[in-house]
């Protein structure tokens, strides 16, 4: 009897392998419809199914209306699973069920009801066998989460294209943003053709309103207000993806995020309700500001202020950390202020 069950079971498995895909959920009637079980013996089917589940070739599921359902497991995986201890296989199943979103250790514990030390041991051994891997969740950076080793974590977990190992990749963002700004800038300003420049220059100097520009410098002019050739989100996205500066393809939503960020930086400006984008700086200015090294800026002592200066940024009082405490006759007072003398030196040069 037992051998018959094994034989039918193996035939059943082969038939399933043939008929169903790996992720297909099948029910009792599906198995009966395979015509493997002689005379549709429910009893025999039950035994076969049980034996297959025992051999880890089938995985039990709860389908619609609380009916029993199965999924097929490949022979390789089944071999892996058979080597696991019962606790380990329990843990493995929980992790497997979470798919690409991963599962928190505390959730595994509550689902399996295993003791923490046992769970830790299981997770450790599974990890060492390279069946599962630990992943980093952007939303809950402190949570320890696991998923199957062969899967790539979903975007919810990684946070999307901007994250590398769960951390916002500022360098990557800045390089893409810089690229976009430059590209948009090229298309937001009209570059006076070389042949035309001479004439334009002559007229300008004749009216005395523009300084003479050296020949190598390019002249950029703004387009009229109703110009419609400013780049759109689609063109920017395709340009970024073709440029090869991103290892992965950036979807449009990500590019929009980046464009919005650039708008907040007042580098770009959205026109027509975000349909088109225009750069505020001319291409040569963009290039100049990007090639400037932030470190050099700091060492020079005065960061270059894009917005210009006002009274408060120039006066020693404006940058004084103790202005709230300052009053005549007190410990910090205009008479004893130590910022004025260096300031005279800096401004007047004596």
């Amino acid at each position, binding site marked *: 009897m037992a051998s018959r069950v094994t034989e039918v079971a193996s035939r059943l498995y082969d038939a399933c392998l043939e008929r169903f895909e790996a992720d297909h959920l099948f029910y009792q009637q599906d198995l009966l419809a395979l015509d493997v079980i002689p005379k549709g013996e429910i009893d025999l089917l039950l035994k076969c199914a049980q034996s297959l589940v025992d051999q880890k070739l089938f995985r039990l599921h709860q389908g619609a209306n609380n009916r029993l359902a199965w999924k097929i497991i490949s022979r390789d995986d089944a071999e892996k699973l058979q080597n696991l201890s019962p606790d380990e296989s329990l843990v493995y199943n929980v992790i497997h069920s979470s798919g690409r979103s991963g599962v928190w250790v505390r959730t595994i514990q509550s689902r399996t009801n295993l003791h923490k030390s046992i769970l830790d041991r299981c997770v450790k051994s599974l990890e060492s066998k390279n069946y599962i891997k630990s992943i980093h969740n952007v*939303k809950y950076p402190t949570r320890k989460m696991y998923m199957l080793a062969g899967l790539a974590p979903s975007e919810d977990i990684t946070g999307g294209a*901007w994250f590398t190992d769960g*951390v*916002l990749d*500022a360098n990557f*963002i800045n390089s893409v943003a810089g690229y976009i700004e430059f590209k948009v800038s090229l298309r937001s*300003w*009209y570059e006076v*053709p070389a*042949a*035309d420049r001479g*004439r*334009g220059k002559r*007229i*300008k100097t*004749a*009216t005395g*309103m*523009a300084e003479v520009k050296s020949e190598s410098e390019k002249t950029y*002019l*703004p*387009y*009229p*207000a*109703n*110009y419609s*050739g400013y780049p759109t989100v689609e063109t920017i996205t395709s340009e970024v993806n073709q440029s090869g500066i991103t290892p992965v393809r950036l979807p449009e939503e990500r590019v929009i*995020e980046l464009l919005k*960020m650039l708008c*907040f*930086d*007042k580098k770009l*400006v959205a*026109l027509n309700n975000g349909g088109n984008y225009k750069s*505020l700086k001319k291409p040569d200015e963009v290039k100049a500001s990007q090639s400037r090294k932030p470190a050099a800026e700091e060492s020079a002592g005065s*960061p270059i*202020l*894009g*917005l*210009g*200066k*006002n*009274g*408060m*940024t*120039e*006066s020693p*009082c*404006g*940058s004084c950390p103790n*202005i709230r405490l*300052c009053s*005549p006759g007190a410990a910090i007072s*205009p008479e004893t*202020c130590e910022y*004025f003398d260096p300031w*005279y030196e800096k*401004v*007047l040069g*004596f």
Partner: protein
Amino acid sequence: MSQYAAELCALLIEDQFGELFARIFTTLQRYERLPLPRLKFYSRLTDRQLHHGLVAMIQHHLVYHFTSLEDGNTYYAANPQAAYYLVRSGKIIQLVESRLGEYAARVMETILYLGHAPITHLETLPDLRYLKSETTNGVVKDEEQEEQQVEEQEEEAQDFDQQAEEETNGTNGNHAEEVHQKPAPLHSTLKALASHGYILRVKDAHFQSPEDNYIEAHKAASNRSDIKLLKGKRLTEELLLKTEEILRERTDGDLSEAWMVNGMPRGVKRKFANGTSESASKWPQTDQNGANGNHADEDEENDWSEDEDGFDNIPMEPGLVLRVNYEKLDVALRNARFVEMAEHNALPATAEVYETLLRRIEYVTKRCRDTTEIPREGEEGEQFSLPIETYKIVNDVDPTLDLSSCMGPLHPASEPLNRRGKRPLENGVNGDHHDDEEDNADNEISRAYEINQHLQLLEQAPHNLASHVRLSDGIKWRVGFRGLARKLRHLELERLVEMRYGDVALRVLRVLHAKGKLDEKRLQEISLLPFKDLRQTLASMQTGGFVDLQEVPKDAQRQPSKTIFLWYFDPDRVCSSVLEDTYKAMSRTLQRIKFERNLRRDFLDKTERSDVKGNEEKWLSEGELEQLQRWRDMEAILLGVVSRLDDMVAVFRDF
């Protein structure tokens, strides 16, 4: 009136007028309205000092006085506005000089210096009698200073220049009398100033505080027989309207309308050298003439001064008492800031067109805003200027200004390049000679088109500096003052943030301003900043008072783990705190000047001795001269900072 603003006003008065004024002023600020006996008691001054001081301060509008009809007492109160405007006088003189020339600036300076003055008095002043009168200018100034017991030198940066001028003139003083002295056109200059609205008629109500004026007007309104008949809601409404009306009647000393010539103030320095366009007096006809353009030739000879020679012979009413109209000057100064904004991110030609538009708007704008306080952000409605027709701008803009060659083509791909190359050339030809009538008309139309193009560029994001109204008879341009004033405020704040916290903070601030209250996670998603940077920036900005944190507990226990923390940026609050800091920085800088002067007291006393002054090179050693120069540089730079800080105060308080 905040502590630091009060401190600043007292310092300014002390600097300008000496200790007596400052003593009276601070006493009045501290105790507010006082009758004379109480004022005497608190200030501990003698009757003589007090009377002299008060009279002079009333002359300068530094003190309001009000005689109550009920108890017959006269109350005195400080006028902090007038005290604060002392710091702006340099800027005002500079503005008048750039608009109306050196002589007008001198007239303005005299009026500023005297507080208010009747025209008959101005006529008698020797330094206003001649156009070129450098020597008398210096001497008279000094005499007056002695008369008025003003110990301190005038403090503005401009006065420095003047001082320098005086010195140079001192050396060649004997020479100046030979210089041909032309009698000065005092009356036409005054008319020019009046028509620009820079000066106004002094009325009795100007000597009383705005509150007193309001109460008086209210009383007068409620005593009217037609008001007495009303009841209930109608009564309050009507009363309010009438009060406003009476108030306006009593305080309005505007002279500009009386002296305007067809909507243009007199004495506008025109940019055209060759007078190709219609003169100011012909505005109403340009509607028809713009089209057929046969008009230009007849008017070619018109120059404003000649045109108005007829008017100039009619002197202004000699009994008229004049004072400076700070409200109007603030409008002009604000427009200058708008132009600066345009210059910052647009081409010079565009900025010039914009400036021309703003100049036109300035003539029809009386004050920066109607409410006394800047309304809260978000509750502030837009307030537009009167729209200005394009053709007026066309006529005002310098005809030699090259408008076409500084804009790209509309369709770069479809349009061949040589077409573009031709455009500036064509225009250069047309722009240079206007003998052909048809050419002229064409030219005007194309210039109107170009000017519209430039203004449209400014209308677009991110500038939003102008907006257009399309009417049946063409496009008119106007400016939304409140939005732009808000933009200026934010610009000043952002500059400060950029300097203190870097550009990352700037991005965070803008996100918070655009989106409202946000928790950290959402803020990160929008600003795309690493958590570490974001937290550091937010924390340092919170310490600086630029952003704030709101806690929203999920339950009654208010556990931190069950609480939502929202970051937000409240521009009103930040603006007012920055304004206070600015006042403080100004008063600290002034105190520092005082301190530095005290350090060099002996030396400076020597340089100010009457025999040394003006003859420094003769009496001072080389080292001393160098020391003097250094001191002057230092004082100039400190005063320069005060004036730059005043620019910020103007943005946060006056615009």
